[in-house]
């Protein structure tokens, strides 16, 4: 009996250990500011490729993909979408060849709280870009997929 109990325990233990987790995605949270965008995607409908810097200024994230179709990242006022969490004045994007960042004066205007995952190799996005654009802001940035975002 004792043996049976041990075997059952072992089976349960092994099953638990080797079974697929339903949700093994490493979700992370961050709080920070939308400070810029990928200039190579300047004309994209939703201005994808936002640069987000965490509030503690220790991390920089870039997001191209959204997992939730009902959610829209901030868009320029030029874009007609109505459900974005921010409307960012078009002029903030106008220096794109020089810098990926919004004007310094509004760098902390677009606060955002995120739940995200780090993009794996297949999910990473590399955009073709003309080489008059300054791309220095992207060198060490992490690409992430946002699961949810609030102001």
């Amino acid at each position, binding site marked *: 009996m004792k043996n049976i109990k041990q075997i059952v325990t072992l089976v349960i233990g092994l099953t638990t250990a080797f079974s697929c987790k339903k949700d093994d995605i490493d979700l992370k949270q961050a709080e920070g500011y939308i400070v810029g965008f990928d200039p*190579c*995607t*300047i*004309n*994209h*409908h939703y201005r994808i490729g936002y640069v987000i810097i965490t509030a503690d200024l220790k991390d920089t994230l870039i997001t191209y993909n959204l997992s939730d179709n009902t959610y829209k990242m901030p868009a320029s006022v030029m874009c007609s979408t109505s459900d974005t969490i921010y409307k960012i004045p078009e*002029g*903030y994007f*106008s*220096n*794109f*060849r*020089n*810098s990926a*960042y919004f*004007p*310094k*004066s509004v760098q902390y205007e677009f606060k955002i709280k995120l739940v995200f995952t780090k993009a794996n190799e297949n999910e990473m996005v*590399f*955009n*073709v*870009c*003309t*080489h*008059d*654009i*300054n*791309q*220095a*802001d*992207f*060198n*060490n940035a992490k690409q992430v997929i946002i699961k949810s975002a609030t102001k």
Partner: protein
Amino acid sequence: MKKKSITFITVLLSFLVIMGFTQINKAKFYYAYNEKIYLNELDNKLIVRYKQNKGFDKKRISLYSELSGKLIVWKDDSTCVITFSANEKVLFKGKLQTQVDVKSCNPVYAINTGLEMGTTDEFLVKFNENVSLKDIQKLHKKYDVEVVKTTDLYQLIKVPAGSDALEIANSYQESGLARFSQPNFICEMELHQVIPNDPYFANQFALNNTGQVFTDGHSGTIDADIDAPEAWSITQGNSNITIAVLDQGLTSDHPDLPNTRQVRLNGSNFADGDPNNPSPTGNGNHGNACAGTIGAAQNNNQGISGVAPNCKIMPVRIFNSDGSGITPQRLADAITFARQNGAQIISNSWGYNSDNPNLQPVIRDAIIAATTQGRNGLGCIVVFSAGNNIENNGFVHFPSNVNVSGVLTVGASDRYDLKAYYSPLGNPSSSNNQLIDIVAPSHRAYSCQIATETFEGWAIDIPDNAGYNPVHENDCGSLPGIGTILPNAGTGYLSYTGRFGGTSYSCPQVAGVAALVLSINPNLSQQQVFDILTSTADKVGGYSYTNGFCNELGYGRLNACHAISKAVTTIASIVGSTLICSSSSATFSVNNLPSVCTISWACSNNLQKLSSSGNTAVFISTDNGTGWVQPNLISCDGSQYPIPAYHVLVGTQKPGPITIGFDFPPGRITAQVTRIPSATTYKWYLDGVLKYTTPNAKAVFQRLQDDYDHVYYIDVATINACGVSDISHAEVSAPSGYNAFSIYPNPATDNITIAISSPESTDSASLIAATQAARFILTNSYTIRILDNFGSLKASLKRSGETVTIPVSNLRNGIYIVEINDGKKVYRQQLVIKR
């Protein structure tokens, strides 16, 4: 009264004559050998030489010397020419001469052609050969001069402070001791360059940097450019050369790039919209800017000038209307399209934000196909911009970093010939091919990097559209104001922009120069073009170049003039005689030379150049042997590029070492020298006696009988159009004695065969005849005798022919002597009978 008047007039006339004579005497001149070259003193220029090196103090000179606003052109770190307004020169000369750091202050002259020649405190003298050292020293002492330098060509002499180097130089010439004596003039070398009339060309510092103020009040370093005007003096490109520009498209019939100079093909739009229309949309001017940088029309009184203004542009559109790029597959298709439709060069000012050299294999393979299969196997020249980022020294973007031989990775230099702030720093230790090959000038930095900097490259823009004209947000820096239009004046100014930059602007410059190179020689392979561009780049910036390479600028800053000059050397060929004699001169000329190119000639020590003119030169020999003549192409800026040397035979040709062999054929000495092309005849001597006069470089001599330890002396001379050469001599000992006949078998039992050695020359008929005559034994009739050990005759026979068999069965075992007597001489050998 009348008498007084006559006297007065006479005195007056005399005075005027004397004054006139005095004036004539005061006319300045210098001696070109013994010819007087008259000089006109300029009334608005002075040449000033300072005591110290002013390399780091040039700006201050204009302040403390009260020279503010005066044009000061530095000739070296201590010498400058200052231009004044009328009537100021005398005043300033006085002031300058009192300054403690001014060494000399001299006038600038001009000869009758207008060439300005400044004098300093130095002159050059070459004394006649027969002048003694004592006389020279006496002359030096008389004028209290200092000898600065002595070479085979000249002595550089410095005159004392306050003395006139021109006058002293003339005195040396007039002494009769000097071959020449001239001031060490400072004058401008004439540059062969083409300055186009395109109004914005003055702002194209990348193509021609004169230190001009061009954009936002900026000015750079003189000559920190690609020397385009100098290159244009040789070629502005050939319309057979087409450069594909893979980008945002090119405006149809742009005023500075008409469709006659575009290759607009159906299917060349790989992005959205009409697949047959490669025109840009919206404000997407990047493609125009790149295409115009390569091919904008020259001398059309409008806009800018392209680097290769006579070549053609094939626009291939690869960016969608929203600015996004097309898929990797479509990009590969676009590269293939350019290759298959005859583009010799493919210019790519785009890339991915990744340093992985294999990021998109399909693109890499398309590049490989272009570089190997394009141009019927010569390979398309593929040029990529490196990308712009400096954080952590930045990185070279894909596809610019593909590991494909000959692909040019282009970084950016700036108006000072320094690495542009954003241009990636090469990293040789990276496994991701993080190397820059070459750079070309572009803007210095983004305003976020240096606040006072922004785009400053001049290019074409989308006509009547915002394009790149208006400046947008400028929060990062202080220049320029939002909305500023550049240019804001001139014919069709909205069709042009002064706001282009990044490595995007550098890449098409390299593509343009590659087009000029192919215009000179369309048969160069893509690797050869790569080598020409990189090997002729200027090693600027003060960086540490190792084997001609540095991490900042790769092989250096592009130089169109040098690249084209080197390309010319690949097509230039020398025509002339292969033999030069002292008795008559030989003329050489360089073919396939562009008309503006000039040549200087070098030659081997045994040749002397008599004259040269244009692309020809005349030489005569001064000694015998082999030699060479080599034209050096004098490049647009005076530097020289060697054309491969032409090897010639000079004078009579002494044969090389004699190769000697024995007994092949038997009994013969074979002597041979390397054949000399110009030699018509060889004279062969054996032991001092002329044996043969023959066209052969080989001779066969008969060995002497019993020649063991004999030393043979063999000599040979050649005869060519210049005469009889010196003799080449060889001495050789016979390796072993040689017999005129052989006996076999030996030892023998019943019969012996005697073989008379016969000539077996494979050489010419005359040589065979000669060796027949030298046969040892005359074979038409001879006597054979066999003698025993005691000299008793055992057999005697008369025979003829080269072999004879004799029965010896009657002879007992023992040692015998076989004698052959041909009536002239007796030859002997030992025979052993042993049964």
